[in-house]
């Protein structure tokens, strides 16, 4: 009696048999597929007496190519080992022997307190309130006329609604994918990312102030958008699915989304403007003394300005 486990999509099929197993669209197969690109009796899987622990796969239908570990199979039969991935038509089948090693248990990425049902709502709502307060205070500091708290609060409510909707959408995804919504966890991380973006935005202005480079001024906000959106997607992916490498996937998705906006912004940028564009940032504390120059040196720097204009003209 030999045991074989066949994974098809997210489903695992376990067989204990001495007979050959069959995969195909026919209803007399051991694994019945509804993929129209595979044959009626596409594959037969039997024990390989020559190499114990491996299987002999016979291809019964040559209409579409069969791939093993992403490489096409040229002969009508081939040997497969535990963990090998077979693609036929648009279906994937992975074969496992019972003693196939599994990956170590993945620990919760975040501490267990987030999984405490009592703390979760309290922590999430607390963080949302904190971020909201931070946002209102930052806006108040940015104004130089009498502060209209009512207007500031109503303006910032939108951000809170946005993260709540974000959390609700991902909860729905989680409920469908993993049968658990994790709404408060989503809310907690979305609020955290919003708080991070607020702090980063303030920090950016100081970075720009100390290094008044137009390139940095242009580049930093885009980088901030990629990182913050990437983190938000990564956390949500982690909570809503079993996907591995969620941080990388989140960042790549964010890079693609922000990249589209960046390209739109580049194409949307006016070819000609009567308004000079430069870094206007002025922040206390005072001017960085190390980079302060005499007034004459500033006037001398016009020469570079004229050279830049000259090179613009030749472009």
């Amino acid at each position, binding site marked *: 009696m030999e045991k074989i486990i066949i994974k098809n999509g997210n489903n695992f099929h376990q067989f204990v048999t001495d007979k050959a197993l069959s995969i195909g669209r026919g209803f007399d197969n051991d694994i019945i597929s509804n993929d129209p690109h595979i044959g009626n009796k596409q594959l037969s899987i039997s024990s390989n007496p020559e190499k114990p622990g491996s299987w002999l796969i016979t291809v019964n239908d040559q209409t579409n190519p069969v791939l093993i570990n992403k490489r096409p199979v040229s002969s009508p039969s081939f040997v497969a080992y535990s963990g090998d991935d077979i693609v036929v038509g648009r279906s994937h089948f992975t074969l496992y022997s019972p003693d196939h090693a599994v990956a170590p248990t993945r620990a919760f990425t975040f501490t267990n307190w987030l999984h405490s049902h009592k703390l979760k709502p309290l922590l999430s709502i607390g963080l949302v309130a904190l971020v909201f307060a931070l946002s209102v205070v930052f806006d108040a500091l940015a104004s130089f006329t009498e502060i209209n708290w009512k207007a500031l609060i109503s303006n910032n409510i939108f951000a809170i609604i946005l993260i709540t909707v974000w959390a609700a959408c991902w909860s729905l995804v989680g409920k469908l994918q993993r049968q658990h919504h994790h709404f408060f966890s989503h809310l907690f991380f979305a609020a955290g990312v919003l708080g991070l973006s607020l702090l980063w935005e303030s920090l950016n202005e100081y970075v720009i102030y100390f290094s008044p480079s137009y390139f940095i001024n242009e580049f930093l906000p885009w980088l901030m958008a990629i990182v913050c959106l990437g983190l938000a997607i990564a956390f949500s992916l982690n909570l809503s699915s079993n996907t591995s490498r969620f941080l990388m996937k989140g960042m790549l998705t964010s890079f693609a989304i922000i990249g589209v906006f960046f390209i739109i912004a580049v194409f949307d940028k006016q070819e000609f403007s009567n*308004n000079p564009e*430069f870094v206007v940032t002025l922040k206390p504390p005072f001017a960085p003394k190390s980079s302060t120059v005499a007034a004459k040196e500033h006037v001398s720097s016009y020469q570079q300005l004229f050279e830049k204009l000259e090179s613009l003209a030749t472009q």
Partner: protein
Amino acid sequence: MLKQAFLYLASIFIFISQIPLASAQDQSTQLFEQLKNRVFQVKVIDIASGNKSSIGSGFLVANDHLIATNYHVVSSYLLNPEKYKLVLLDNQQQSQELAIVDFDIIHDLALLKTKALPYKPLVIETSQPAKGNRIYSMGNPHDLGMTIIEGTYNGLVEGSRYQKYLFSGSLNPGMSGGPAFNSRGEIIGINVSKGGEQISFLVPAFHLADLIKRYRQNGEIAQADYNSHIYAALYADQDAYYQHILNLDWSTTSFMNYDLPDKIDSSLKCWGHIKSKDKDLYKNVHRHCRTEDRVYLDNNFYTGGFSYDYSHFSTEQLNTIRFYNLLQSRHNISGFYNGNKEDASNFVCTSNYITLNDSEWKATTCAREYLNYKGLYDASLIATRVDQYKESLHLSIRMIGISQHNLLNISDRFLELVSWKK
């Protein structure tokens, strides 16, 4: 009896009071009749559509069929001769084609030539009329037909970079390039622009006499040389102005706790005010000096301005973070609203933290180059003091159509004179 005597006296009084009015009306009627054949409508015709693109007026100034008008009336033709043609329409609605022979972009004048006009030219009077003299102007406002208007001569405009006569009469679009004349029908100026209700400006006739003289000496300007001719005039004009400014002894004025360059030249007009509203948590004292003249290059491209502004900010109520947000909102250069991508490059800027007499500032200078007149720039220098918690000064200088070396020298000179009373 008494009633009859009263009626008799009253009728004499009414008759006498009407004499000057009637005489003035007679004079303008006579002048109109005398000059109407020698004042024309000048039309710029768009060749593609065959319709008029712009209109102005002009008048005969010499026996060899020379017509005088404004540069701005014919500029679209002058800058794009392949797209437009110039046409003169006389009193009998007869039209004939015109050609440009010379122009003075600085004083907004152009000389045109046509094939044949069987009229006597108008006489140019180069001396200034006495202030208060009644003068007349002719032209075709809004394409409504040739009209004559009366007004008063009020001398040369004071505090102006370019000499212009102040005409207390009402010029309207379409009259540009038309003649302004005295009661003898002699040309004293050329209609050029309007400054407000009953405030109009004339180019003095002596500039037209100079232009005619130059044309007699140098001959016609070839179409291919129009651009270089404009460039030479603009360059020479800005050079003369800024060299004049730089040769002056710049005095300083006390502005809040700073010593800053005062009104440098009579061509500048200076104004000041305090901006402080109930809701403002800071006080802003502002002063600016600027020239009010500009040189017309194209429909939406002007040059020749020079201005500088000082804004002092102080607060008791704003904390440092909020005060610096206020300063940041003012550390910008407002749009030049002038020209398009065919006229000038985009702006390029340079920023530095600088020291001015032991105080620290963020200084930014932005400039763009004229595409058709290389070597001329629009530039702006702004500086905001950044080493104080509760007060700061923002200064800004704007120079339109300036050369490299004048820009360097004016910036240098200006920053040199900024000081702070500790």
